[in-house]
């Protein structure tokens, strides 16, 4: 447990240190800025619709995946690139424990930035409409989607040094375009997992979200179960790779 806590602590420091957290923090301000600027002089109902038209989409289709990509892919990728992977792996700890600790740190870091972003946007909505019902569910939805994205991008970051590039293609081509065009593929879209939880918790959001995202099947427990399964599989796959493959290249 001491080793697990130590990995989480040091990894959190790595993830939230340096210039990249400032850049991600600035990116996180975009939904609030858009909400604040675009909802001036709108009625409460119109402000709520505007929230789902733009800031909500920016949060789940840009801020969340980009933060999760940068933090998640760097979690193991940076250790491999910087040569510290041997320091981490040559310890009397099971590989899955090491990977889980790294995941927890990346998830907390990513969720902190994105949830703060979502919370600010939801509070701005509340200030315009007087309804603050979105604040709690948006944090939960971010936490769920962030877990899935971080776990998948962590695996990607270990497998390739071009994880950010591949991840961006995935986010902006697959998630933002293809899954919208082909309704059948919506089920395999990662950001929708959190959004379905949100829709279940905020009934007023279902109609506007359905209009933007196509048919959505709200369900908080289902979303959480899906997230747990995908996250667990990704973490175990990475632990297995660390056990079976060479930890270092030539």
């Amino acid at each position: 447990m001491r080793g697990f806590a130590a990995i989480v602590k040091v990894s959190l420091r790595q993830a939230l240190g340096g210039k990249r957290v400032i850049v991600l923090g600035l990116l996180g301000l975009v939904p609030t800025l858009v909400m604040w600027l675009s909802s001036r002089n709108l009625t409460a109902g119109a402000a709520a619709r505007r929230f789902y038209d733009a800031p909500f989409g920016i949060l789940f289709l840009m801020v969340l995946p980009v933060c999760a990509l940068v933090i998640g892919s760097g979690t193991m990728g940076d250790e491999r690139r910087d040569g510290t992977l041997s320091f981490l792996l040559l310890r009397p700890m099971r590989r899955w424990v090491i990977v889980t600790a790294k995941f927890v740190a990346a998830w907390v870091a990513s969720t902190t930035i994105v949830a703060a972003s979502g919370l600010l946007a939801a509070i701005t909505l509340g200030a315009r409409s007087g309804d603050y019902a979105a604040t709690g569910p948006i944090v939960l939805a971010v936490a769920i989607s962030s877990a899935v994205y971080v776990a998948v991008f962590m695996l990607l970051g270990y497998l390739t040094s071009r994880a950010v590039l591949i991840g961006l293609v995935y986010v902006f081509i697959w998630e933002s375009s293809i899954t919208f065009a082909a309704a059948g593929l919506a089920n395999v879209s990662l950001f929708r997992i959190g959004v379905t939880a949100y829709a279940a918790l905020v009934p007023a959001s279902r109609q506007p979200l359905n209009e933007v995202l196509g048919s959505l099947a709200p369900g908080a427990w289902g979303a959480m179960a899906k997230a747990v399964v995908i996250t667990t599989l990704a973490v175990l796959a990475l632990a297995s790779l660390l056990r079976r493959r060479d930890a270092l290249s030539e």
Partner: protein
Amino acid sequence: MTSSPATVRDATVEVTAVSKWFGQKVAVSDLSCSFGPGITGLLGPNGAGKTTLLRMVCGLLRPSDGSVTILGVDPRRQPSVYAKAALVPEEDAVYPALTARQFVRYATDLSGAPRSRVDEAITAVDLQAAADRPIAGFSKGMRQRAKVAAALVTGPDVLILDEPLNGTDPVQRAHLIDIFRRLADEGKTVIVSSHVLAEVERMADRVLAVVDGRLAAAGDVGAIRHAMADIPYRVRIEVGDTRRMAALLLETDVVSSVAVSGSTLHVETSDLADLGRLVPRMAKQVDARLTAFEPEDESLESVFRYLVHRR
């Protein structure tokens, strides 16, 4: 298990017929050896396969063929063995944002070692003055010492060091060698790789020479030299009449080649003792003044060069 000089009786680390290839490139080929208490030097030029071998020993690389055990277990299957084994890798495996103390403490937390050892380890590598500074500002030598402290703090029975003296100044080097010697005296297994022969000569009780991924020689320094009975010795002779001396030397059976360079002769011989007896007599014969007779490569380096050249 004592029939080969590559193996030891009380082995703590055993390497059995290990090979490793990366695509078409063979990095280590069918190499068997073992390591026991004391310091064993792993010697070889850059690219010889030393780092690959040590990474396989640690479990960071999976052997393409053969097997490795540390304290009787395969480290890739039983990571619990890492509580008793530590690696100081060649690369800068440090976290720049952490201070040296935080880095060493991180190592204790990961290994389950007592935190009370942190100060002791930092003191052992003489890093107290910089212990609370971020590693980012450290010199190469200081980083090396921080890595050694992070390995020592776990109290390993098997310590594997890949080029640990790189970047250290002579004083630090002597200090680190003292630490490794002390560990060896305590019965720990210390494996040190280096391409700097003088370093290996200074600290290792036993040497394994690796060339082109294969074991080229094994034993103590003297034994390796003895085994290489046919190794040609190079001798530098300063003498007055170099041309006549060279002609006389080439007529003998013990000299295989002579090169003249000003008033110096560079002679290659198979029998240093015989040559030592002959040269003064010849100098007297040609009435030339003999001012120097020195072996050019009496160190382990000559053995190593010979081994590399012979392959």
